[in-house]
């Protein structure tokens, strides 16, 4: 056999186990999600092609928009709040000489290795109306009047779930930003200090622009978590999706596997996937530029 052809075939043989698995179990299903979104189908009977009817239905579906708003709240609390908190804390401590930085790093990352369902279960107790931790602390400090069923009303539940995300991601953001700040040239700060720049000016003129790359990466990572898998498990364990806490992913799951609206559920998944892919695409473009 032609030596060159043989080399190519060997290369393909090495890639094929991984590639075929990825193609059959990830790529092909992704394509099918897209295909299903143009059909009306209960999963058992005949598939009726209905073009973009499912997409038009989205606009009139108040449950979809409720889920959409829930995700917006999660984006604020899973992504924006931890990023701001991370910037604040890291800019204060990054240049200080503090003992035990490694231990703090270990602790700050701990929430990342816990199953979302376990996180949601623990916070389900923390927020519980009776015998819950938050209400107990409130009564302890004499603020019984503030006690609430935190996860039991549409006015507090989405924010209460959001705060779980803030707990989950703030430590992560702090560590990433500290690593970023420590890479900034020390001279930039000493020069600024000689010029009489105060701490606030140093933050806005040096730290913030120099951290641009880390900020973008962190925002995008947390944005994706606030839209997909992470919130699915947390919400299902904490509230089951009640009281305006249901995110888009959980709505799609319930439509598909409880109400058997395969086509419409797929449409919702397509919208979610397009949003996530768009965000990832922007992230990669920025990554390339660096």
């Amino acid at each position: 056999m032609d030596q060159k052809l043989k080399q190519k075939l060997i290369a393909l043989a090495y890639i094929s186990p991984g590639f075929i698995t990825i193609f059959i179990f990830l790529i092909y299903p992704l394509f099918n999600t897209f295909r299903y979104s143009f059909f009306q189908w209960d999963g058992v009977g005949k598939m009726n092609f209905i073009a973009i009817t499912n997409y038009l239905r989205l606009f009139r579906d108040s449950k979809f928009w409720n889920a959409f708003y829930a995700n917006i709240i999660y984006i604020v609390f899973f992504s924006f709040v931890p990023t701001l908190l991370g910037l604040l804390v890291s800019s204060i401590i990054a240049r200080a000489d503090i003992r035990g930085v490694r231990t703090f790093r270990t602790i700050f990352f701990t929430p990342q290795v816990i199953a979302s369902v376990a996180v949601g279960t623990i916070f389900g107790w923390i927020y519980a109306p009776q015998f819950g931790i938050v209400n107990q602390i409130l009564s302890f400090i004499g603020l019984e009047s503030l006690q609430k069923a935190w996860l039991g009303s549409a006015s507090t539940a989405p924010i209460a779930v959001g705060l779980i995300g803030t707990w989950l991601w703030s430590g992560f953001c702090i560590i990433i930003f500290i690593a970023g700040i420590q890479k900034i040239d020390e001279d930039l700060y000493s020069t600024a200090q000689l010029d009489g720049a105060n701490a606030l000016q140093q933050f806005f003129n040096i730290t913030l622009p120099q951290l641009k790359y880390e900020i973008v990466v962190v925002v995008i990572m947390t944005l994706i978590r606030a839209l997909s898998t992470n919130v699915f498990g947390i919400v299902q364990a904490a509230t089951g999706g009640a009281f305006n806490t249901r995110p888009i992913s959980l709505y799609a799951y319930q439509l598909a596997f409880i109400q058997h609206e395969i086509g419409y559920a797929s449409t919702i998944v397509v919208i979610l996937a397009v949003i996530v892919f768009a965000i990832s695409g922007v992230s990669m473009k920025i990554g390339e530029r660096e």
Partner: protein
Amino acid sequence: MSKGKAKIINTMLFIFLLILASVILMPFLIMLLGSVREHIDIIIRGPLALPKIWHFENYYIVLSRYRFGIYFRNTFYITAPTVIVSLVFALMAAYSFVFLDLPFRKPIVLISTILGVMIASEFIMIPLYRLMNVFGILDTYPAAILPQLAMSAAFSALILRSFFLGLPRDFIDAALVDGATNWRILWSILAPIARPAIITSAALTTVWTWNSYILPLVMLPDPMKVPLAVGLLLFRGTYTINIPLTMTGTVVTALPMLIFYLLFQQHIIKGLTRGAVD
């Protein structure tokens, strides 16, 4: 700034970090202390009291009388093959990307790394359910393993590829001149060198597979086959009232990964921050 003043500031910052760390650790402490109490004791003395008697038998109850022992075993059955097989596939793929004469290299690399990593379980859960049904493996471990394996292989291939790209090329050429086969080069020369990248990939994919929730929820309707993450919710659906047993079940779900994290923290942190700090 005087030395004394700097010291005071550093101490204040240290205390500030200590408070932050306590807030992050508090839910874990609540979980652990809650797991060894009695439900009636929580109602009488409140959720914040320390246990009077440490009810370690809660663990025995949850593991044997309820199904957490089975959930634990199921989680292991799903995690071990996923991590091991995906690493083998990823090593072979990354070797082919970097060292072999792969046709259509660019699209193949793109599909089997970046695209694979970007596809979340919920994007594909609906067609996967049908696919597994057609294959006749719905409600068997492979239905939960295979898609997870594909995601893990894509992630590990991404990590291993960038590791291999950093190796000197002539290194492999020398081995080829020596007459070593590709198979031998990959497993006896490259794999030992790639140890750090392999451990990082294995550590991350272990954590993700152990904690994976959506795929087993959809693929394993039989409650005797589900892993801990799904089992915990099934348990709560049946026995929500009992707080200590719920917390015990949560500890059984979370503690293995907490210990695993303490053992492999350097690798896990490196993997989690990949892209953000390098």
